[in-house]
């Protein structure tokens, strides 16, 4: 009675970017008149989900978005797709993907061509290489982050002139809180 359908369960409270979502929407939009059981079957087919009890040792390659709730050791490659490590997922592997969303545990280096997103409760022990990295409050991270810029000069400080002006006036800025973040 407590067992729910793992294929369609949301991976976390704040997971709007769950890879399955766009696929679900596409499926629903293209077949609005599908009877409920058939639509459900299609969704199950489109969402690839490695369940909690699954243990994989070796190399995992794919050409579709993937959610892992089980254990994977070795190497994961989803070069053009989104990899989601669910809250129950435990990964001990080198990860290569377009985007990686971490709600579970990752032990190993993570390389993403678009984004790495460590959500609240997620944990990464390893080095991250990605142009965009988001680490939520409540996430654990240990390692280095390499955010290679896609060309162009480093951004110049917007506030540099203000800083110089303040110093030249010879006064320190107040110790009172100026705003709540």
């Amino acid at each position, binding site marked *: 009675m407590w067992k*729910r359908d793992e294929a369609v369960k949301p991976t976390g409270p704040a997971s709007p970017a769950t890879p399955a979502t766009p696929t679900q929407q596409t499926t629903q939009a293209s077949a609005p008149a599908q009877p409920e059981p058939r639509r459900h079957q299609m969704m199950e087919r489109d969402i690839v989900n490695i369940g909690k009890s699954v243990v994989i040792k070796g190399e995992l390659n794919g050409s579709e978005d993937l959610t892992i709730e089980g254990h994977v050791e070795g190497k994961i490659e989803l070069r053009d797709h989104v990899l989601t490590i669910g809250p129950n997922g435990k990964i001990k592997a080198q990860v290569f993907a377009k985007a990686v969303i971490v709600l579970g545990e990752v032990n190993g280096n993570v390389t993403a061509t678009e984004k790495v997103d460590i959500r609240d409760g997620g944990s990464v022990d390893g080095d991250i290489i990605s142009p965009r990295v*988001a680490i939520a409050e409540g996430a654990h991270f240990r390692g280095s*982050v390499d955010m290679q810029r896609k060309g162009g000069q480093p951004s110049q400080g917007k506030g540099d002139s203000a800083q110089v002006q303040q*110093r030249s006036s010879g006064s320190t*800025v107040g110790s009172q809180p100026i705003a709540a973040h």
Partner: protein
Amino acid sequence: MVYHSSLSLSDLFSSRKRKDETADAGAAGPVYPTKALAKFLSSLNARSQRLLLDLGPVVGTNVTFFGEELGCKIHVEDLFKDLERHVTEDKLDAFPSFLARRFAQEDGTVDGILCWDIFDYLDKASAQALARELVRILRPDAVLFALFNVVEAATKAPPGYTRYVVADRQNLQYRSYHSARGKQRPLSPRDIQRLFEPLRITEQFLLKNNLREVLFRKPSAETTTDEGKPAGHRAAD
């Protein structure tokens, strides 16, 4: 009783046990101005292939900020967590030797170090061991940013570390969190200078919240003969 149909009991327990106690719990905190941070960023911006070392706890906002501002590689080495572990395990005597072998970086490979206020919590031996290591791993002409308390911490105040969250180039948000160790006796400016020799103090600002922001620079190879001499105090005090 509220029951969420998409969550099982195992989901709840598994996510609870993984919660990192030292993870950034969010919350608000006062925002104070910083004057040295912009100088630190400017120094780093002039370099390519930069490597930044952050000795504070992991703050996602900071990682994003420094990554986007500098496009550099960031190593996060949470020394506060290490210190806390040594305090709670009553192994503080071993902390200096731990620090002496803490950093795996090669000599002269780091372009910038964010110390925050870690030195306020260290005893003399630990501070010396850490400073020695930081000087070792800094590249010539590289910069180090640190904060130092200038007044004795109130004895009644509960001990706590501060998570410094970069709001922007001119402001830091201070978020306190519980610690087993309080701030130690403040270091005098001369002590600070001696501690980091042969680094040179290029900027220092005494803020009204009783913190001294100091920006150090490692002399380039040509100027190492002029060791330890502060290059012009630009203190705001």
